[in-house]
């Protein structure tokens, strides 16, 4: 079964940002904690990025924010993760979603596509997480292009403005 067939029944969002950078640098930013801590609401990512390996995003106070498993890895172009929301119990109970990062070089830019999908149609994980990604991705772009992330994306817990 392809991811697209699975998505057909469930919910998903597709976010894209264009970054003046290289696929290697964007890959490092998504997979190394010294970068994720700067733009991912202060979260550190932990994983060896091998297919089948567990991964997690940890808050500075040790709170488990998100966990999962690496489903597919093709550095620095594609990463597919099983994604379990951990810190809101209602969302945790909804189980796994799937996040796909695709990184494409387009001349001097990198096109980063993030798709998060769920097989469920009755869940809230997709709509809640859909609100967090835009700031995160804007901050990642700013970090890559200027060397500094957006302040509002640096701290945990994330400030959730009503979208």
């Amino acid at each position, binding site marked *: 079964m392809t991811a697209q067939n699975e998505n057909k029944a469930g919910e998903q969002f597709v976010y*894209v940002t264009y970054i003046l950078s290289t696929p290697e640098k964007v890959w490092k930013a998504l997979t190394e904690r010294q970068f994720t801590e700067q733009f991912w609401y202060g979260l550190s990512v932990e994983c060896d990025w091998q297919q089948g390996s567990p991964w997690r995003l940890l808050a500075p106070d040790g709170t488990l924010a998100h966990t999962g498993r690496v489903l597919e890895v093709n550095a620095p172009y594609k990463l597919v993760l099983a994604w379990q929301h951990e810190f809101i119990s209602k969302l945790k109970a909804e189980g796994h979603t799937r996040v796909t990062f695709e990184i494409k070089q387009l001349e001097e830019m990198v096109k980063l596509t993030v798709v998060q999908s769920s097989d469920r149609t009755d869940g809230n994980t997709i709509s809640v997480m859909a609100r967090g990604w835009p700031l995160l991705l804007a901050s990642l772009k700013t970090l890559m292009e200027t060397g500094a992330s957006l302040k509002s994306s640096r701290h945990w817990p994330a400030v959730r403005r009503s979208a």
Partner: protein
Amino acid sequence: MDIDTTFRALSHSTRRQLLDRLFERNGQTLSELCDDLGMTRQAVTQHLSILEESNLVVSQMSGREKLHFLNPVPIHHIFSRWIGKYENARLNALALLKDNLERENNDSSK
């Protein structure tokens, strides 16, 4: 993919309406987006292509269907360029100052 492109794309009410529709329900086909819009398919296609060029809409194939998704990331760049600069703390400080000054005015006028 500059801010001018984003503003140009947002400057037309039909395009904002298309974004609103995708906000209500993400991942729609062209036919679904055309429903009750009172416009030709061709006109809607043109508006959608402007939205795609400005990265406010992203399309993906799902089987044989092309689905359209709202991409709010460029709008966040506009937000972070002006509003984000001031940060919440400063905005809160200003709101607090305004409250205090207004209260003082009210007190002194009593």
